[in-house]
């Protein structure tokens, strides 16, 4: 099966100019792990993931490569995390993606489903499906993959 057979068509998406707060609300309220960002004509511009949210609130000393491996000694940080989130509130989603780059692979509609499942296993979030002109066609998610598997004859 190619990915286009199981992908969610017309998934929730946002414009890169959307304020961070609106993006976070959509992540939290709809339970998404990933929201593709598209400009006019559905041009894919990247994706907001839960990792972006975590990168915003955690100190750089942890999120950088080879950073701290354990933070159990840092106590009483909830107000600090809240302040960090507040400080990033004015950013647009595009700015968030620039400041905290997260590698989000994309796939083509004809890509084998196995590849999409492997990418989801590796990264922990859904995989955007784009055409040759980089237009967003859909999103392969864990739920969509399970649904497709359940519908298959044993």
């Amino acid at each position, binding site marked *: 099966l190619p990915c286009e057979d199981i992908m969610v068509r017309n998934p929730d998406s946002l414009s890169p100019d959307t304020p961070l707060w609106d993006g976070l609300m959509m992540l939290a309220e709809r339970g998404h792990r990933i929201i593709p960002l598209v400009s006019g004509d559905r041009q894919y511009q990247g994706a907001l993931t839960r990792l972006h949210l975590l990168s915003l609130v955690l100190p750089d000393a942890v999120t950088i490569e080879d950073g701290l491996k354990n933070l159990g000694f840092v106590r*009483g940080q909830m107000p600090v995390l809240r302040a960090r989130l507040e400080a990033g509130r004015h950013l647009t989603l595009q700015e968030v993606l620039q400041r905290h780059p997260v590698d989000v692979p994309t796939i083509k509609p004809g890509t084998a489903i196995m590849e999409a499942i492997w990418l989801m296993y590796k990264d922990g979030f859904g995989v955007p499906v784009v055409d040759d002109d980089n237009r967003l066609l859909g999103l392969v998610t864990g739920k969509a993959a399970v649904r497709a598997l359940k519908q298959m004859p044993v």
Partner: protein
Amino acid sequence: MTAAPEHTAEVIFGWSPVWVSSVLLVVTYAAIISERINRSIVALLGAGLMIMCGVLNQDAAIRGIDFNTIALLTGMMVLVAVTGKSGVFQYVAIWMTKRVNAHPPAILMSLAVLTAVFSALLDNVTTVLLLTPVVLLITDQLQVKAYPYLAVEIFASNIGGTATLIGDPPNILIGSAVGLSFNDFLFNLGPIVLVILLVVMGIAWLLWSRRLETTDELRARVLSFTESDAITDRKLLVKSLGVLSLVLAGFVFGHPLGIQPGTVALTGAALLLLLDNFGRDAETQSEEVHKAYGEVEWITIFFFVGLFIVVAGVEQAGVLEMIANQLLAWTGGDPRNTAVTILWVSAILSAILDNIPFVATMIPTIASMEAELGGPDALMPLWWALALGACLGGNGSLVGASANLSVAAFAERAKRPIRFLGFMKLAFPVMLLTVAIANVYLVVRYF
């Protein structure tokens, strides 16, 4: 099974070994300096060509590799990698910060001492890799600039590393080639390193102490850190500190018994791996040991292997003896002038170039001056001059030492980049001052 035919060294096309080896050395060094190709690839290619062009035969090339240095570096890297898993380095950094009540200028001073001590006893790069994330976290929490702390960390790591046989790669190379002991380094370089560290701490205090301000509320945040929670594996901590103590004792007491530091370090690494993995199933053991070996900086190890062979090539061809004679002609064969020249040339070159190839080349060059200067004892001040110049010179710029580059890479990732020229404006004069102090020390103590 038939034995491989013995490889005889005969330079291709009957060319002069002096020219062929010199050209290979210069091309290798130029490629290392250009930094366009990874330095370990360049060194290994240079080594391969040295053998294939017939400057060295296979046996001479293998003999040229200082396996004591390789074993010492590898053993210490494994030891520190396994120890680091316990969280002890974060523990000490946080404990130290709390001991000075999280006052930013006091943290700056204690960071200098801590980094210098760790760097003296462990590899510099590893020390800064373990300390920099904690420094970034603490400065972030206190909302003070990270730059003064990172700069002090660079200075202190190079200065601290100068004090011991195992502190800095140039010292490892010199100690191994000449047969100097851990105590030889500590007694000859320790006192002046202490003076230099205090001077640099004084400069840092004058430059930054008034500008590093925070609030009581932010300090309270850092003071609420529970350092004991930084320890992730108490059993491993006890085992690691036990083995590290044994290894240090081995460096001190092994030398008179003829046990080389490389043997001590690798045996210590094996002992710690045994203690850490004892009782685990085969699969977990395999994973853990694989991870520990993965922490070895193989680029550095292969770089050393290649470089040893390249230097062996020019040494066998007689090029280094010619350089030594030229150097002695410049200095009039006077040991004091020679030592001072070596000190300053090493320092300036080490500030802008990789000091490892320079030191690797200088060791046989200095060794060949033995007869001219009057025996091995006359060479001792020259070895200290080389160690002081190469190690302290590393402070002159961001590219002066691998530890500097590691700190700069962290700073870049944490979006607090250290500018090359901005750092050099401070670092180069500081380096010159420290080398001037070392110069006075060398002259007063040895001549």
